[in-house]
């Protein structure tokens, strides 16, 4: 099945699923309430967005310089920096480190880049044990599922479902209380932390000025992942660079507010190197892998370059009426929602993924919500334009050619209206059925009748009577 028909099948199923609709809507409505409260704590949220967009603009437009600065600072404190052009290279680098360290178990904190390169699957195939330590990720890992949402991986599940899952997979679920379930997960994870040979993390921001990587989390699991095992590996996209340390003063609260409606995420840690002489904790070795994976192609596209500003906060998913109705898994991509629909065609091929840009009412809620002002819904329009220009769909283009021919000729247009008025009673006989030409609409919705007298006809008649 093609990506588009898979998408349509899943979308049909999910958008009719009233239970799913209600779970997601309830969760995101409470998110909206706290987000708005936190936004109001900014002196001016709009100015903050503008400042963030400008900082990101500066970061991305001088990405080459910032990456060189970041790398030299990291290396100066003993960090090993690796460059990966694509997922295959990144996975090879990681496997090689694990083999060198004779590692068997890897504990991971949340990293969407690892989803992007399908890391867990590859490592498990090589015989490594991989444990997700973010609670949401831990839950979806138990279900053998990708994360549902880039920030809230298991938001589609109710506590009852999580209880049943824990009972089945871990043999322990005293009740469906979130606290008790968290304690079960915690007991399992603590053992894994102790036995893990390597800790694996993502990165939220990389500071070029100081050579630091900033990791944001709510559970403390990333700190343990970074602190306990002897070796630490960090994988991040090259676009995560910020020029200055002081930029975090804006970006940390902004990420927390836009992403989860928090004033600040609970733990924000800046890592600047492996354990230094005289220090009592931290990994002995730290590997940072900077991943391109076609981000440089987005960088080359002046029109959509700003999509590299994305800080993966998930705000655009949260407000998107498409996401809310079809859910995160329907997209079939690592990055779902509006930002996923914008960047996936660049990362994985326009013709294969253009349907995500078409599956939008272009309502613009995403653009309005984006804290770094990515012009998301207009990029969807541009993807549509690029897709049609490079590989037009024969019948669709023909239909628009005919439409344009008729719509630019008043006589034909007026004839089309009269024809529609005459044939509409026939359409009514077959409404919603397989031979109804308007069935995509009429299966679920009524069509309004074509008026006995159109506006233009009324106007012409009126002008005539005024002239008399």
């Amino acid at each position, binding site marked *: 099945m093609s990506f588009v028909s898979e998408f349509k099948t899943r979308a049909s199923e999910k958008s009719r699923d009233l239970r799913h609709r209600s779970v997601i809507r309830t969760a995101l409505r409470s998110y909206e309430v706290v987000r708005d409260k936190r936004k109001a704590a900014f002196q001016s949220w709009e100015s903050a967005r503008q400042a963030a967009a400008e900082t990101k603009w500066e970061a991305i437009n001088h990405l080459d310089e910032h990456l060189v600065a970041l790398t030299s600072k990291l290396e100066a404190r003993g960090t090993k920096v690796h460059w990966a052009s694509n997922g295959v290279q990144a996975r090879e680098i990681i496997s090689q480190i694990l083999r060198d360290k004779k590692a068997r178990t890897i504990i991971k904190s949340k990293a969407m880049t690892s989803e992007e390169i399908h890391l867990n699957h590859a490592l498990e195939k090589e015989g490594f044990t991989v444990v997700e330590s973010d609670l949401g990720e831990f839950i979806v890992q138990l279900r053998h599922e990708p994360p549902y949402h880039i920030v809230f991986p298991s938001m589609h599940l109710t506590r009852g479902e999580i209880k049943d899952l824990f009972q089945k997979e871990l043999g322990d679920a005293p009740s469906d209380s979130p606290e008790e379930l968290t304690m079960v997960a915690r007991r399992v994870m603590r053992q894994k932390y102790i036995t893990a040979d390597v800790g694996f993390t993502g990165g939220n921001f990389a500071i070029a000025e100081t050579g630091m990587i900033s990791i944001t989390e709510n559970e403390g699991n990333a700190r343990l992942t970074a602190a306990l095992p002897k070796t630490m590996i960090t994988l991040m996209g090259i676009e995560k660079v910020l020029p200055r340390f002081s930029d975090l003063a804006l970006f940390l609260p902004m990420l927390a507010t836009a992403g989860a409606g928090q004033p600040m995420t609970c733990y924000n840690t800046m890592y600047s190197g492996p354990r230094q002489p005289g220090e009592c904790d931290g990994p002995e070795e730290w590997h940072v892998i900077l991943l391109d994976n076609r981000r440089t192609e987005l960088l080359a596209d002046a029109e959509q370059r700003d999509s590299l500003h994305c800080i993966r906060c998930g705000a655009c998913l949260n407000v998107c009426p498409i996401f*809310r109705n079809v859910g995160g898994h329907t997209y079939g991509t690592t990055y779902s929602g509006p930002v996923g629909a914008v960047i996936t065609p660049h990362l994985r091929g326009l013709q294969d993924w253009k349907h995500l840009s078409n599956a939008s*009412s272009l309502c613009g809620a995403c653009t309005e919500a984006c804290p770094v002002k990515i012009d998301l819904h207009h990029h969807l329009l541009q993807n549509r334009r690029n897709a049609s220009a490079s590989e037009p769909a024969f019948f*669709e*283009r023909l239909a628009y050619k005919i439409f344009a021919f008729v*719509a630019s000729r008043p006589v034909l247009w007026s004839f089309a209206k009269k024809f529609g008025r005459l044939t509409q009673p026939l359409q009514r006989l077959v409404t919603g059925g397989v031979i109804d030409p308007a069935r995509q609409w009429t299966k*679920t*919705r*009524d069509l309004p009748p074509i008026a006995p007298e159109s506006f233009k006809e009324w106007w012409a008649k009126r002008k005539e009577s005024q002239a008399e």
Partner: protein
Amino acid sequence: MTVTLFIPCFMDALFPRAGISMVEILERLGHKVVCPNEIACCGQPPFNSGYWDEARTIAAPVLEKLKSAEAVVIGSGSCGAMIKKFYPELFKNTPQAELAKQVAARTWEFSDFLVSKLGVTDLGAKFAHKVTFHDGCHGLRELGIKTAPRALLSKVVGLDFVELKEESCCGFGGTFSAKFPMISTAMGEVKCAAATETGADFIVSNDSSCLMHIQGLLSRQGSKLKTIHLAEVLNQQ
């Protein structure tokens, strides 16, 4: 002032009452209304589907017809956004680039024209019903129109206004509604449920295309809730 009315294709064929109301209101305010009969469509369907050449085939003669208009007024945020925001984009790097910008600058969505350009909010209308308002996304986010329709409705005698609890797209989205009918319908159902929750008799909007979608769902559900264009409410005496 001479006002050139741009009547969107769906308003012309399906909702002529909205257009007629706009004519009557503007004339009552003492303006001369003209309506070039040759204009059928703004070209948004091919534009939104990515067929920009075909969109230009439709839009180029529209620009010519509107070239010397003093003010172009449209009873739809969506078609208004097409001319005001997207024509300059569509005609960028073409000989009509400058003209597109000029026409865009003189184009107004109906409620915004009344309030921001003419400075009118009280049209002496009476409409003794409970109503809620749906902001079409193009009007709201491309053109930034939110307060004008509410200012106009607040002056309607007998009208009981209630806001929707959540702002959301109705799910129409032009060809999106036919390409992804399942998603479009789900979005519309969310909208209809929110509107029903308000207890209103009417959903008012400044965009007939959204109302067509909402009404299509409401009728199919057998709901008593009705939809009506803002201009028709403002024209009730």
